[in-house]
C-alpha cells in the first residue's frame, strides 16, 4: 500500500528519479559528515529505551502520557505491553524490564508496617535476577541496607522511626524510582439494606481484608445475607494452600481466627490471642482467649495453636515461609498459653507475624497426612464466619457464627463476576448489596452515584504506584538521568485521568504515605518541570543533536 506510489514514481519519470537519487546521495554524505564531526563533542546517542508495560488499563494510560513528555526532551521509548503473568516472570522475577516499568504495591496486612516495603522493595538483597522480592529498580545502596537491617531488629519505636526517616531522605535524594500517586478506592453499598460499614485505608469499606467492617455491619431489613462481588475466584478452602489472591487468603481468616488482626485504623489488636508479653527480644508469651470453640463445638486450646505451628513447619507449608523466617519454634506453657521463640529480634512481629498465624483444629488436621493435597471441603475453624458453600467460578457463602466472641450480624455471599459492567448493573438492580473490588473511572462512579439506594464511599489508599527505573545500567544508573525523568512525569495528569472523580493524591520524592506515622516530610522534592529536567541533564553534560535527540555526556563509557 505504501510502496505503490513509490514504484509508480520510478516507472513514470526516470529523470526525476535521477535527480532524487543525486539529492539523496548528497544528503547522505552530508549527513555522515555532520554526524561524524558532531560525534567528537557529543557522547553516544541515548538509544530508544524499553518500557515493560504491564498490560493494565491504568499503566497503558501512564505511558500514553509519559511518552510525549520524554519525546520532548529527545528520549524515544519502545513501549512493550506485556500480559500480567508473563510480566511477573520476565520483569519481576528475571528483572528483564528494560529501562522502565511501572507497578504498584498492593496493601495486604503484613505490608502495613514499613518493614515489608523496606526489605522487599529497597534492600539490595532483592536486587537482580532471581533475587525475589520487588526491588524492581535493582537499587543497591549500602547505607540504606544497613539502616533497613537495623530498623528491623530495633524494638525501640522512636529509634526505629529515626532510621526509617533517614532512609526516606536518602531515597528521595537518590530517586532510584519514581513514586507517582496513591489512588483512592471507591466502593458502594446498598444503604437501604445495610449500615455500619467502616472505612479502612487501602481496603475501603468492603474489601475482604477489612474484617472489622463486616463484623460491624447491621442489616436494616429481613435480608441478613450481604451479597458482594469479587472479580476472580479463590483456589481452595484449605488455609494452608489458599493463595487465590487477597479474597481467598483474607476470607480464610474469617473462618480460621488469627492470633491478632488489624482493625480499621490499621492498628494491631488482640484477636484469638487475648494478650502477649515480650519476655526478652526473642521470646514472647501468648495467652489465648478462653472459651473459644471451633465450629464443630470442640474447644480451642493452646494445644491447637502449637499443633498448627508445628504442623506447618513439618510440612514446610510454602505460605508460612515468611513466618518461619522469624519464628524458631513454639511450645505450650499452659491450657491457654504458649511461648514463641524467634530466630532474631523482629520489630514488626506483632504487626506481621501474630496477624498471620491462624489456628486449625488438631482433632481434624492430625489425621491429614498431606496438607498440600487435602481438599478440606468443609473447613472447620473458630472464626466469626462458618463455611457455607463454594461453587467454583460462581459463589462463596459465609454464615455468621453466633458462638463467636464477636459474632457478626450478617451472612456474606460472594459472587464471582468478571465483568465490571455486569456487577454495576447488579448493584443497580439490587442483585448485589456491595462491591468487594474497586470502582474505577468516572462513568462507573457517576452511574452509581445516580442510584438513590446506593451510598458511595471514597477511601484513601496507602499503596504507592511507581515508575521503576533499572538502576544497574545506563541510563538508569545515572542520578542526573533519574532526576530529569522524575521532573518529566506528569503525575497530576496521570492521576486525574486514571482516578477520575474518585481522586487520590500524588506522591513527591518519597515512597511513604503522608498519613503514616513514619512519614518524613522534609525530603527532596520533585515537581513536574520539563525545564528543570532539561537543566539537570545539561548540567550533567548531556547534549542534544540537530534533531533534538538526547546524547550522553561525552565522558560516559557506553560500551556495554
Amino acid at each position, binding site marked *: 500500500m505504501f510502496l505503490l506510489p513509490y514504484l509508480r514514481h520510478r516507472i513514470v519519470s526516470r529523470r526525476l528519479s535521477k535527480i532524487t537519487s543525486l539529492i539523496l546521495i548528497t544528503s547522505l554524505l552530508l549527513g555522515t559528515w555532520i554526524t561524524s564531526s558532531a560525534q567528537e563533542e557529543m557522547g553516544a546517542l541515548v538509544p530508544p529505551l524499553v518500557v515493560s508495560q504491564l498490560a493494565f488499563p491504568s499503566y497503558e494510560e501512564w505511558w500514553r502520557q509519559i511518552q510525549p513528555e520524554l519525546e520532548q526532551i529527545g528520549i524515544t521509548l519502545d513501549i512493550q505491553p506485556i500480559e500480567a503473568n508473563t510480566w511477573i516472570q520476565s520483569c519481576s522475577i528475571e528483572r528483564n524490564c528494560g529501562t522502565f516499568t511501572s507497578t504498584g504495591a498492593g496493601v495486604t496486612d503484613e505490608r502495613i508496617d514499613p518493614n515489608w516495603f523496606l526489605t522487599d522493595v529497597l534492600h539490595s538483597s532483592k536486587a537482580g535476577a532471581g533475587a*525475589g522480592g520487588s526491588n524492581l529498580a535493582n537499587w543497591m545502596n549500602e547505607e540504606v541496607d544497613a539502616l533497613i537491617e537495623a530498623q528491623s531488629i530495633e524494638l525501640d519505636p522512636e529509634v526505629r522511626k529515626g532510621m526509617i526517616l533517614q532512609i526516606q531522605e536518602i531515597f528521595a535524594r537518590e530517586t532510584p524510582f519514581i513514586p507517582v500517586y496513591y489512588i483512592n478506592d471507591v466502593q458502594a453499598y446498598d444503604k437501604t439494606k445495610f449500615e455500619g460499614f467502616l472505612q479502612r485505608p487501602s481496603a475501603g469499606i468492603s474489601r475482604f481484608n477489612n474484617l472489622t467492617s463486616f463484623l460491624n455491619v447491621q442489616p436494616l431489613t429481613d435480608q441478613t445475607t450481604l451479597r458482594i462481588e469479587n472479580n476472580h475466584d479463590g*483456589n481452595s478452602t484449605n488455609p494452608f494452600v489458599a493463595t487465590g489472591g487477597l479474597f481467598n487468603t483474607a476470607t480464610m481468616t474469617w473462618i480460621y481466627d488469627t492470633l491478632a488482626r488489624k482493625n480499621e485504623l490499621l492498628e494491631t489488636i488482640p484477636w484469638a490471642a487475648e494478650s502477649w508479653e515480650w519476655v526478652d527480644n526473642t521470646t514472647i508469651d501468648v495467652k489465648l482467649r478462653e472459651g473459644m470453640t471451633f465450629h464443630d463445638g470442640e474447644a480451642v486450646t493452646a494445644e491447637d495453636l502449637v499443633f498448627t505451628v508445628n504442623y506447618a513447619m513439618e510440612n514446610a507449608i510454602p505460605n508460612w*515461609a515468611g513466618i518461619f523466617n522469624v519464628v524458631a519454634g513454639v511450645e505450650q506453657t499452659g491450657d491457654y498459653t504458649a511461648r514463641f521463640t524467634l530466630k532474631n529480634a523482629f520489630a514488626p512481629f506483632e504487626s506481621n507475624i501474630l496477624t498471620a498465624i491462624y489456628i486449625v483444629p488438631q482433632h481434624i488436621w492430625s489425621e491429614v497426612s498431606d496438607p498440600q493435597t487435602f481438599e478440606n471441603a468443609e473447613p472447620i475453624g473458630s472464626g466469626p464466619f462458618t463455611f457455607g458453600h463454594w461453587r467454583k467460578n460462581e459463589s462463596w457463602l459465609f454464615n455468621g457464627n453466633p458462638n463467636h466472641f464477636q459474632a457478626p450480624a450478617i451472612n456474606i455471599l460472594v459472587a464471582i463476576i468478571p465483568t465490571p459492567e455486569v456487577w454495576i*448493573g447488579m448493584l443497580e438492580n439490587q*442483585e448485589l448489596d456491595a462491591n468487594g473490588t474497586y470502582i474505577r473511572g468516572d462513568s462507573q462512579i457517576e452511574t452509581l452515584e445516580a442510584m438513590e439506594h446506593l451510598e458511595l464511599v471514597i477511601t484513601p489508599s496507602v499503596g504507592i504506584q511507581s515508575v521503576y527505573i533499572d538502576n544497574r545500567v545506563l541510563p538508569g544508573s545515572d542520578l542526573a538521568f533519574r532526576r530529569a525523568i522524575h521532573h518529566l512525569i506528569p503525575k497530576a495528569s496521570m492521576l486525574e485521568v486514571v482516578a477520575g472523580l474518585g481522586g487520590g493524591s500524588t506522591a513527591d520524592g518519597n515512597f511513604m504515605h503522608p498519613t503514616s506515622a513514619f512519614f518524613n516530610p522534609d525530603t527532596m522534592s520533585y515537581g513536574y518541570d520539563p525545564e528543570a529536567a532539561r537543566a539537570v541533564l545539561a548540567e550533567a553534560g548531556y547534549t542534544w543533536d540537530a534533531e533534538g535527540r538526547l546524547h550522553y555526556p561525552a565522558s560516559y563509557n557506553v560500551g556495554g
Partner: protein
Amino acid sequence: MSREYILRRFIRMIFTLWVIMTIIFFMFRLIPADPASLLIDSSLTAEGQQQLREFWGIDKPVFTQYLTYMGNLLKLDFGRSFFYRVPVMEVLGPFLRNSLVLMVPAVVLAIVAAIGIGSYMGWKRGSIIERWGIMIPLVLHGVPLYWLGLVALIIFSFWLRWFPSSGMRELGYTAETVWDIYFNIDFLRHLILPMMTAAIYLAASPIMLMRSSMIEVQNEEFLDVIRAKGVPERVVVRHAMRNALLPVVTYLAFLATIAVAGSVLLETVFSWPGIGRALVEAVNSRDYPLAQAAFFMWSASVVIMYFIVDILYHKLDPRISLK
C-alpha cells in the same frame, strides 16, 4: 464400505488428537512464567518454590514430563490442578456440564431456526423480504459476540429487568442434587438470555447456508416431478427442505467449533461458570493440568464431531463414492 473407512477415519482422529495434545503440552512449557512463582506470594523461599515444583512434577526434564502426561492421558487421568489442588476432573466436571447445558440448546435452537428461516428465504428468493431480510443474519454475525451479549444484557436485564444479569441461578440458591440445579424455573430464567444470544449468533451462518442450499435444490428436476403429481406446494417445500439439509448437517461440526470459541466470551459476559471461562483462567494462571484437560475436552468434542459428520455424510450422500 465402510467398516474399513470408519476404522481409518477413527485412527486418523486419534492421531489428530495426539498431535493437538502434544502441541498444547509443549506450548505451555514454552510460555515464560513458572506456575510456582505465580501462585505463591513473593515471600516464598527458593526451597519452598522448589518443593512446589517437585510436588507438581514440573522439576523433571520436559520430555519425562511429556511421557508421564501422555501415559496419564491414555488413562484419562489429567492429574491435579495446580490452582485448585484437587484432581482436575473434579473441577472440570461441573464446568463442562454447565457449558453443555448452555451451548447444546443454543446450537439446537440455532439449527432449527436456521432450517426454518433459511429454507423460507431460499424458497422466496428475490422477494423484498428475502432481499433485505438476508441482511439481518449477516449483520448479526458481523457484530462481535461479546458486544451482542453486553447490549442484550443492558437492554433486557438492566433496563427492562426481564432477566437476571449473571450466573446460572439466584445467588445463594442451594441445590441438593444435579437435578435441582438445572430443572427449575430460576435456572431457566438465567439461561434464556445467554442461550438466545448464542443461538442468534450461531444461527447466522447456517441460515445463509440453508438458503443457498435451498436455492440449489429448487432447480433440481425431482421437484418438478413431484409437482407434476399435483401435491400441494407445502409438500414440495418439505421435499426440497429434506434434500437441502445435507450441507447443514455437515455444517454442524463447524458450528461446534464456533460454539466452543464463542463460549469463552459468552461465559465471561454472562458470568457463567463454564469450561470456556475456566480454560482461559487456567491458561492465565498457568494451571497446566486444568488447561490441558479443558483443551483436550474441547478438541476431542470438535474432532469427534467431525468424525461423526464425516461418517454421516458418507452414509447420507449417495453421490460420494468410497474408495
